[in-house]
């Protein structure tokens, strides 16, 4: 599997890109030429220069530094969302698929209800209810997405639970939790990886959309969606402001999509169309 991964150029390149972006985000304090919060109000909307590589925004803050710092909430929150989603989804899916019976019934009914709501609306509803704040955005995203994972993982578990190695494990007296964690989870992990890398792109777009609408990451924290929100206010006078954050989002999300597709090719070459 690893060999296949290393051989796949797309997978390698996108992974390198993503890791690189993550590192830039982590080392933003070293790499950024300016303090992303420092305003220089008399120098607002300045163009590209050595001290401000991408110019300044409406408060005279360095756009380039804000872009670098913006990686942190953008990638970090998306990763956190996915962790939460997969965690909750896996737990529910495993419980439902493994124990069947009434547990399965209850969980799957809840999943059905969750899936019957348009996810976008649910995100807004949850944010509206809990208040506008970053934690709530993550909670909202986990809340609307876990059901997909629960259903997928349940199907996966059903596929594997009667395989010989699981039956054997049970025969030799391993505990149920051990079987769940050691045998079933790894078996469906690869499918999950594909879905997760595709969905992390979704999470990035979703979180940035909320920030763009003013419901997510709040000022003055530099986040790409929030920066685009500020750019919108000066669309007629300073349109350049909206380029950098938008392009950055497209590049990172594309990278995750490509990675997801490549992973799927590696795992299952048959399904490789589009």
């Amino acid at each position: 599997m690893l060999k296949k991964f290393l051989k796949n150029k797309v997978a390698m390149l996108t992974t390198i890109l993503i890791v690189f972006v993550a590192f830039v985000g982590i080392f933003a304090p070293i790499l950024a030429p300016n303090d992303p919060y420092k305003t220089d109000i008399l120098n607002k909307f300045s163009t590209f220069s050595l001290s401000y590589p991408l110019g300044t925004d409406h408060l005279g803050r360095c756009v380039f530094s804000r872009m670098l710092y913006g990686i942190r909430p953008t990638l970090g929150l998306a990763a956190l969302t996915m962790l939460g989603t997969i965690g909750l989804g896996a737990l529910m899916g495993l419980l439902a698929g493994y124990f069947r019976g009434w547990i399965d019934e209850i969980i799957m009914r809840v999943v059905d209800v969750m899936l019957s709501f348009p996810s976008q609306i649910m995100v807004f509803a949850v944010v509206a209810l809990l208040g506008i704040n970053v934690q709530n955005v993550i909670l909202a995203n986990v809340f609307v997405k876990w059901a997909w994972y629960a259903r997928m993982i349940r199907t996966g578990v059903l596929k594997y639970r009667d395989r010989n190695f699981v039956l054997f494990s049970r025969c030799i007296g391993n505990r149920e939790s051990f079987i769940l964690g050691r045998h079933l989870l790894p078996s469906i992990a690869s499918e999950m990886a594909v879905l997760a890398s595709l969905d992390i792109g979704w999470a990035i777009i979703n979180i940035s959309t909320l920030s763009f609408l003013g419901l997510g990451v709040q000022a003055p924290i530099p986040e790409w969606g929030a920066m685009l929100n500020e750019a919108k206010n000066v669309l007629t006078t300073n349109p350049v402001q909206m380029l950098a954050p938008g392009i950055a989002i497209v590049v990172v999300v594309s990278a995750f999509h490509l990675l997801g597709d490549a992973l799927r090719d590696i795992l299952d070459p048959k399904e490789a169309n589009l």
Partner: protein
Amino acid sequence: MKNYVIKRILAAIPLLLCISFVCFVFINLIPSDPAEVALRVRQVPVITEAAIAEVRAELGLDKPYLVRYVNWLIDCLQLDFGVSYTNPSRTVAGELVRCLPATLMLAGTSLVMVILLSLPIGFFCAVYKDSWFDRLTRGIIFMTTAMPAYWVGLLLMWFVSIQLDLLPTSGNGTWKHLILPAFTVSLTYISTYIRLIRNNMLENMKEDYVLYANVRGLPQKTILTKHILKNSMHTCIVAIGMSIPQLISGTIVVENVFAWPGLGTLCITSIFNRDYPVIQAYVLLIGVLFVVFNLLFDILQTLADPRLRNEVV
């Protein structure tokens, strides 16, 4: 057949109840006290504990939870969603009715765009698989799935309206105002459906009946249009139909970018103003729409496809 339809409709009722219950719980979880809000709405200068208790009894807030739910549900069925917290002179139902046409118009136009663009493009992509056209389209599709809708909206607004001065930037009024937002909404769906149609047609091409038609020596054109396209359309139209509520809810972001006076703008403003009755009614409305459209197209699909029909009868 009739039995099946009835069964499906009956099955949807618990789901609708579930959705309404979630919405009801939602309004009851919020921090502000409805009794206090009611007093504020009536412009009572000084709010006392006694006054709150009185209103509480008047509004039936002291009754058990389930009783209140049933009462609320009955009100909802009569389209009475209460009054807006921030604008007490307006009813929530009135606000929804005011904003719904604009949203439906936007969603409807987007739907037309989706069909008009994705059908032919998907068709040609499948017919000329791996040609430059197919590759280019797939490239564009790939890009658009990675672009946030609001950013596309901003770019279009800047390029088409400000630079080229072709269309109005935002707001609503003439059909010209509609083009940019509708296109932005439809973009995500267009790429999904091009993909769907293309793959569906490619799969159909491998079917036996195509081989048979080829053997019979029918012209390629007839095979493509009469058989393959028609068969692929089934799936696609049902899929598109089912995504209508998705489209309606998808307008929420784009409406805000283009200042389109529809439900989405109403919803976001209400979130900022903590106008909970409006948010609740909006979520309820979209939830119900979602279930109804799913049901409708599910039944239509079964009607149209004999294989599925035989299964259920």
